[in-house]
């Protein structure tokens, strides 16, 4: 299984990858996860590669072979769309974060319609999950990643209860309740609650 997660530095992509990788390991599988720290994290484009199977060699997913592409931001989803395999599924948040060249007006902002159209053309199997909007409604933009995790959990083989336990084990005690709510909301958005 190849899961590529992408987003913008600060969106919680790394925690998201940690949870899925740990579930795969607990299930007795070989797991590799790759990410990049440092300069790339300062508001730049961030990816997490997660691969699990009985035996995994490369920690990097090859272009055109991702089973699941998870985009925390619409433009980032399109930036990595070429990693998606022929039968792969795209799960993305239609949320937008403008990069600096756009926000200072140096580069034209691609419209939602254009991005959405290109995603539709390149990913026939896809779900748009308004995770950011849902997180705000629940009280904190910071649980966007747990909403996404809830949505994605509908397409992975691990039981929902394992996800809940992993969340409870990884987030701060006072944030557990909100994160579990966010997880449930994500599952509902994919109609697998």
């Amino acid at each position, binding site marked *: 299984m190849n899961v590529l997660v992408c987003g*913008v*530095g*600060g969106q919680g992509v790394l925690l998201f990858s940690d949870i899925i*990788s*740990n579930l795969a*390991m607990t299930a007795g599988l*070989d*797991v*590799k*996860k*790759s*990410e*990049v*720290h*440092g*300069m*790339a*994290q*300062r*508001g*730049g*484009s961030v990816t997490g590669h997660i691969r699990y199977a009985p035996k*995994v*060699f*490369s*920690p*990097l997913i*090859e*272009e*055109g072979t991702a089973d699941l592409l998870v985009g925390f931001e619409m*433009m*980032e989803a*399109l*930036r990595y*769309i*070429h*990693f998606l395999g022929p039968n792969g599924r795209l799960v993305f948040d239609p949320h937008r974060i*403008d*990069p*600096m*060249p*756009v*926000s*200072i*007006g*140096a*580069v*034209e*902002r*691609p419209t939602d319609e254009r991005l959405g159209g*290109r995603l539709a053309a*390149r990913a026939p199997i896809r779900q748009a999950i308004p995770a950011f909007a849902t997180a*705000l409604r629940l009280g904190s*933009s910071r649980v966007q990643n747990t909403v996404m995790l809830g949505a994605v959990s509908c397409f992975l083989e691990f039981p929902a209860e394992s996800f809940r336990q992993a969340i409870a084990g990884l987030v701060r005690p006072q944030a557990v309740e909100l994160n579990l709510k966010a997880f449930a909301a994500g599952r509902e958005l994919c109609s697998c609650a």
Partner: protein
Amino acid sequence: MTRKLLSGDEAVARGAWEAGCHVAAAYPGTPSTEILEALSTYKDVYCEWSTNEKVALEVALGASISGARALAAMKHVGMNVAADPLFSAAYIGAHGGLVIVTADDPGLHSSQNEQDNRYYGMMAKVPVLCPSDSQEAKDFTRRAFDISEEFDIPVILRLTTRTAHSSSVVELGERLPRPVKGYEKQITKNLVLPAFARARHADLERRLDRVRAWNEASDLNRIEKGSTQRGIICDGIAYQYAREVFPDASFLKLGMVWPFPRELVERFAVSVDELLVIEEVDPFIETQVHALGIKASGKDRLPRTDELSPRVLRNAVSGPAASVKPEPGLPNRPPALCPGCPHTGMFWALQKQKLVIGGDIGCYTLGALPPHNAMDTCIDMGASITFAHGCDKALGDTDPRRRIAVIGDSTFFHSGITGLINTVYNQSNVITIITDNRTTGMTGHQPHPGTGTTLMGKDTIAIDPAELARACGVKRILTVDPYQVKETRKQVREFLSEPGPAVIISRRPCALLIKLRDTPKQVDPDKCIGCKTCISLGCSALLFGDDKSHVNPTICVGCGMCADVCPKGAIA
């Protein structure tokens, strides 16, 4: 058996702990930082952030000479800083096991170059181990300590970004209790006076020969028999990519690439029809293979730049695969200074002036990008000040642009001090700006000599850069608060009108460090005249659209710099 998902860095830390390491020292640098961060969470190991990599290696060598097992960790370019003690350490040897971890960065994810530190092993005459995943990172670290002590030689463990920052499953072991052997005065070994060093060099050649003989039969290298049509020699992460792309080939996977196991390679070469060497960046192994007179393909097909990946291998060896093209025409997303970043204010204060600005290494290097445009050069750690000094000596009065250096607090302690002393000693007209955000920001908020705390969480003396500058002989010193943006600009402009050498300290803690989260600012659309003054700060929480500025309330931390610069009082 306990299994755990560990990054390569965390696995090195675990391996060092299991090996009974007593002392570990490092300077933070991507992708090596997490080694000491992880190691400092174990009991029984003294860990420190040293002022720089040279200091770290000398500290580790001091511990080794005292009979302790010691580790120094650094990013690849840190090895350049530590190169001086590295060469002496090879002569001196390792009373207690001495392991030097270098984390190279092919692909320049967060570095200024792609240097291949396997060559340091060849040049300094020390063994080099290259793990290919986290399990090996842990196992090889343990083995490196053993080899170091057995052969009385320091050992380099070379990670790359994809081994350091990839996580994979590791079987954990227990710590081997290992008493510190103790210090014995031995000047013919530990004091590299020419007369002694001459003998130590000859001894080093013998020690390295013994390691080479051992490496010929070592289980650190292994042959995996597959089809005899294609044989692949590889090391490190390249092995993982190659196994993925060429599942049927025969493999010689080298764990210790230096000293080079010649006979093993010769044996493998004759067992296959066609030989391919797969390694990242430089043809280190390939050159050795060719030197044996063995015909092999390698960098004639594979790139010498950037990191490898399964796709790069496939394209290079089998010809371009069915095209999977990235979506064209998307705006780039370069990294940017965070909302509330105090560097923002200082860079704004420097705009629109006639300056040549030497930059340095840290988050603030992003000040080179638009709209800040506040940096002309970036060379290496500490080079902002020395660049500006050289520039000033070359141009003198022939060029009106003021020579400025911009350097972070941690970088200043790392290697800026010597440059600052040089501007005083050799009197140049350089203004050094220390962007003091009270932490080592880029690598994730490590303490440094100015912060008053240590890696192990102890309180210590916080060295004040202003006092230090004064002690270095700097007469003019100005401290500003970059959140008071307009006031900073006014003071800086006045200060720049007088001759140097002089120092400005721009002091305000990193917004991430103190988790700044004040009420987001709002733009009053009736007052905003669309002049873009706030946009010129380059804050990522500010947007411009419909001829007005807007604040993104989900990422704004309420620092107020935009409100400070707004000429119409439209932001509050």
